[in-house]
């Protein structure tokens, strides 16, 4: 006991030291930083090995053009965690390239300063929809768009042709095809071991909401909807209820979803499509490279998601170049962003070995058809242009995605019949979150 009392005292003493230390360190982070052209110019991207090579080449081009040397660091796992650590020591990398979805958090924590859109050379060449993804909840810009994409539906072509089914154009077609894949043994091995829909339905990172949001849009529903300059919860609207009821049918009535879907993360999910266990997968176009290699380009086809009651809809996503706060190289930050959105760099970014780092170009002067020469990418581009919609630019969208995923996961796991009642409960929680973020009407 004596030792533990002593260590408690020591811990308390240390806590006091910590408090004092932090009190000294809480001066404003946004203060003007001394510029230093000799400081290393650090750039981070969230990439695995293959795309990192494409980035490295891009940055080498940049150095050749401008003489600015980039200290490049690709990070895949723990990107946010490492960024938080650097933020804690107030020494952020100068530039990061990351999901448009992380904008809210970056702004909320003060990691990215406001950006004057008009001052970026070449800003007029960027499509307006992409700029939307760089806009914060306050209507100001906090990043430069770099790449865009929308989710598409992948279908096992050989299975569909074997069963003599047409390409699905509506929800009814899709459900019918999923049932056929589940019950009619499309792989012909005599066993009932195939499934229609592949759904990465874990609540981890809110994946289920990611997947479901396209279907919500197709029914005219949404998680939250813009209402003037504020937002209103839309997850309990009649349209959203209809979408969730339809998804519930796939899980609970026709049972065409792969087993274990509600605890499945994306990494494990890909294997189901590759190994011929599931035939329909709504996912991002960055998977083409991997599926071409592991499954075969001729085995699957890429279509725009079949239309729901409100037409075709799909989630739009992308990546932004964020010019981080507290950089000693402000001029070079902008120079790099301007280079990355130039037609040349965008084209180079689309030519990756297995994964392009620019999926759809944000620059109007780059033609998807000529660069990729791949009809599947035309499908993605057309979908993005006509019917894709990004998550709303709330100060922090993460809690909404997380709670929606948890709510939907509950409905699908228990096969609750009162979908409307369950969604109203979820709506109540989302409303509280909107109020907490000061975005409720």
């Amino acid at each position, binding site marked *: 006991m004596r030792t533990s009392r002593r260590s408690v005292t020591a*811990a308390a003493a240390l806590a006091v030291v910590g*408090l004092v230390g932090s009190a000294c360190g809480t001066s404003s982070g946004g203060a003007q930083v001394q510029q230093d052209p000799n400081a290393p110019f650090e750039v981070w991207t969230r990439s695995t090995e293959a795309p990192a090579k494409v980035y490295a080449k891009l940055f080498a081009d940049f150095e050749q053009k401008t003489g600015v040397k980039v200290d490049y660091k690709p990070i895949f796992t723990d990107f946010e965690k490492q960024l938080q650590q650097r933020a804690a020591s107030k020494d952020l990398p100068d530039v990061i390239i990351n999901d448009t979805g992380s904008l809210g958090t970056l702004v909320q924590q003060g990691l990215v300063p406001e950006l004057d859109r008009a001052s970026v050379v070449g800003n007029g060449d960027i499509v307006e929809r992409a700029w939307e993804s760089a806009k914060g909840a306050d209507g100001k810009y906090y990043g430069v768009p770099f790449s865009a994409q929308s989710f598409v539906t992948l279908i096992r072509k050989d299975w569909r042709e074997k069963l003599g089914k047409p390409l699905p154009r509506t929800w009814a077609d899709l459900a019918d095809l999923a049932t056929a894949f589940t019950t009619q043994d499309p792989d012909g091995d005599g066993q009932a071991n195939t499934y229609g829909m592949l759904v990465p339905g874990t609540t*981890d990172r809110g994946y289920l909401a990611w997947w479901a949001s396209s279907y919500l849009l197709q029914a005219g529903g949404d998680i939250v909807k813009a209402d003037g300059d504020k937002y209103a919860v839309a997850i309990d609207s009649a349209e959203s209820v209809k979408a969730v009821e339809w998804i519930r049918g796939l899980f609970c009535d026709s049972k065409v979803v792969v087993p274990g879907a509600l605890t499945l993360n994306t990494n494990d999910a890909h294997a189901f499509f590759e190994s011929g266990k599931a035939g329909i997968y709504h996912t991002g176009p960055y998977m083409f490279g991997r599926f071409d290699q592991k499954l075969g380009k001729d085995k699957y086809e890429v279509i725009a998601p079949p239309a729901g009651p409100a037409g075709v809809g799909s989630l739009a996503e992308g990546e932004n170049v964020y010019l981080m706060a507290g950089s000693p190289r402000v001029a070079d930050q902008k120079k790099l962003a301007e280079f990355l959105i130039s037609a040349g760099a965008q084209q180079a970014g689309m030519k990756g070995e297995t994964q392009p780092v620019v999926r759809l170009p944000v620059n109007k002067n780059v033609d998807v058809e000529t660069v990729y020469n791949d009809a599947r990418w035309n499908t993605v581009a057309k979908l993005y242009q006509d019917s894709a919609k990004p998550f709303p630019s709330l100060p922090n969208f993460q809690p909404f995605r997380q709670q929606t995923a948890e709510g939907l996961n509950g409905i699908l796991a228990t096969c609750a019949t009162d979908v409307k009642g369950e969604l109203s409960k979820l709506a109540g929680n989302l409303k509280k979150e909107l109020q907490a973020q000061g975005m409720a009407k």
Partner: protein
Amino acid sequence: MTAVETARDVGATANGGGAVGPHPVGRRRERRLTGATPWLFLAPALLLFVVFKYVPMAEGIRLSLFQVRPFLGDLFVGMDNYVRILEDDRFRSAIGRTFLLAAGQTAGAMLIGFALALLLEGHARSLWFVRSAVFLPVVAATAVIGEIWRLLYYPAPEGFINNILSFVGLGPLTFLDSPDSALWSVMAVGIWKGAPYDMVLILAGLAGIDRQQYEAAEIDGASTWQRIRYVTLPALRPVVTILLTLAAIRGLRTFTEVYVLTGGGPAGSTDVWMTRVFSVAFERNELGIASAGSVLLFLITFALTVTVQLYRRRKAS
């Protein structure tokens, strides 16, 4: 006087020296060394403890009182984080589930560990081999175990366990796929992983029991069950106390198994204390609230340990 003392010294040394009683020579040397000496020896370990344990702990306690915003400066919010996490429905139900999981895993692992220990006690070479095989789950990485059990539990007829069950006309069971069975399935994995560890400690306890007690009991006409009940179990009490403490702490901070097996789903049915804290910290970026959750867990574990210690001391005295 001097002569007598010397004689006593020699006597003490001849008797085996300091091992028996305080040795005068030793005492003299002790006096020469300053009070700082033991601390000097402890310094490397203490330093590591301070840097890697106490400082992070103190930092965690500090963060639990702030809204954490690394670049804008943290905002002091007092006990607000504690109030918010305790008001969170999901966190509250996770607490209940954590205790259920901890209790189930502890009891299950102990029972099966005890049964295994009784079966595998002895010195034969074959037993040594079987014991090592049984111990494997303890040393395998939890993340790997999780991935493998996910495959075993695959909730379709072609899943491994369901396939076996079908031979005896059972199944297919849902395992991790249904909110009704997910927590029990996680618990089973925990027991599978924890039981061999308990077995080893119980084996050590069994080895310490005097054989004569068994013989005496047998002469008195005690059945096998009576021998276990009245000889083995009472003799194992100290081992059981330690196992209970260790297992309870381990059970409360369960994370990896749940995270890899289910990520807390489906429908939050396997969400436990630490997965909730993780989700709040790294999915919702609320480091302050997550720290509050961790501090609460620390306090509870601390209280639990102290209670067991006090209980033991009272028993002993």
